[in-house]
């Protein structure tokens, strides 16, 4: 949770969750704009597989006195099978007219079309799916320090080995 109390304060949240069988990951971020010219960027991604459940909750509140504030919220979810669940509950509470605010949410299954395309280029189905998942997580992993990014990619590969489809 971030409180933007000083004029011109900025905050950015980038999060990723990976829910496997029997897991319920309930994550989120709140940001309260309390001063003028403040800005926030929220970027959340979640992946669920084998019946895992991901829930993302966010609140962006821009107060009456937070004139000329900017906020951008993006939440994306990827489900790898038919039994996994993903919910996003973004709440946007804008209390003055002089703001720039954008919000986008995308929830979907892994695209058959994309898998077919990659398979036509010589990849196996598993490799194609793993490549799509790595591409989905890439915007987050590229922001992390290199040792954590490598560990994150390794974990994703480990979880995906023979597990999808």
């Amino acid at each position: 949770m971030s409180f933007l109390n000083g004029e011109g304060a900025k905050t950015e949240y980038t999060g990723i969750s990976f829910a496997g069988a029997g897991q319920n990951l309930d994550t989120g971020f709140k940001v309260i704009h309390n001063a003028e010219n403040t800005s926030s960027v929220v970027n959340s991604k979640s992946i669920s597989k084998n019946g895992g459940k991901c829930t993302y909750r966010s609140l962006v509140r821009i107060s009456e006195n937070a004139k000329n504030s900017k906020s951008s919220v993006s939440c994306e979810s990827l489900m790898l099978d038919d039994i996994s669940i993903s919910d996003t509950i973004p709440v946007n509470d804008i209390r003055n007219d002089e703001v720039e605010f954008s919000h986008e949410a995308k929830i979907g299954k892994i695209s058959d079309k994309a898998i077919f395309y990659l398979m036509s280029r010589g990849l196996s189905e598993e490799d194609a799916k793993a490549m799509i998942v790595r591409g989905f997580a890439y915007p987050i992993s590229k922001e992390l320090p290199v040792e954590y990014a490598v560990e994150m990619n390794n974990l994703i590969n480990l979880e995906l080995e023979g597990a999808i489809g």
Partner: protein
Amino acid sequence: MLQELKINETPVRTSRNLNINNIKIQNIEIPETIGKFENVNIIGQVTEDVKGSYNLTYGLGNELENQVQQKANRKFKIVVEKNKNQNVEIDFNFNSQNLTLIDNIEIIANENTESTITIKYKSTENIKAYHNGIIRVLAKKNCKLNIIIVNLMNTESNNFRVLKIYLKIMQSQLYNCRLWRKK
């Protein structure tokens, strides 16, 4: 044993049928006796001078928040001094000798600073660990603060954590990765 814990309530209620207004966790084993947690690697300058309680609500519920205020077995304070840049990394490694961690972390970034704070929770063995913690941040004028939290605890463990940031004319970036490690 905590019978039921209601967490992460949505600020605006949605249809009851969706069952997503909040989440209830049942029968959580909360450790009564808190042992020591020694397996911590620290890179950078930290102290253990965290002052008692603050009248703040974090969202974890009274029971868990009181546990942090009263029974924390690791307390860290990170102060980034004015006009200086400082990076700190704290790695908490759970194993069979270090099963319970209740951490209370305070970060103060003073004026004109740039810093990256990395906090990592990792369980290396097939154990049932417990973590409950609060991270409280105060960031002052013209500072840039990156906070990276990496959770690599196994699926048997209970993990409760909340982070609260107060910003005064500054820039902060928070990266939160919640992955899980195979047993």
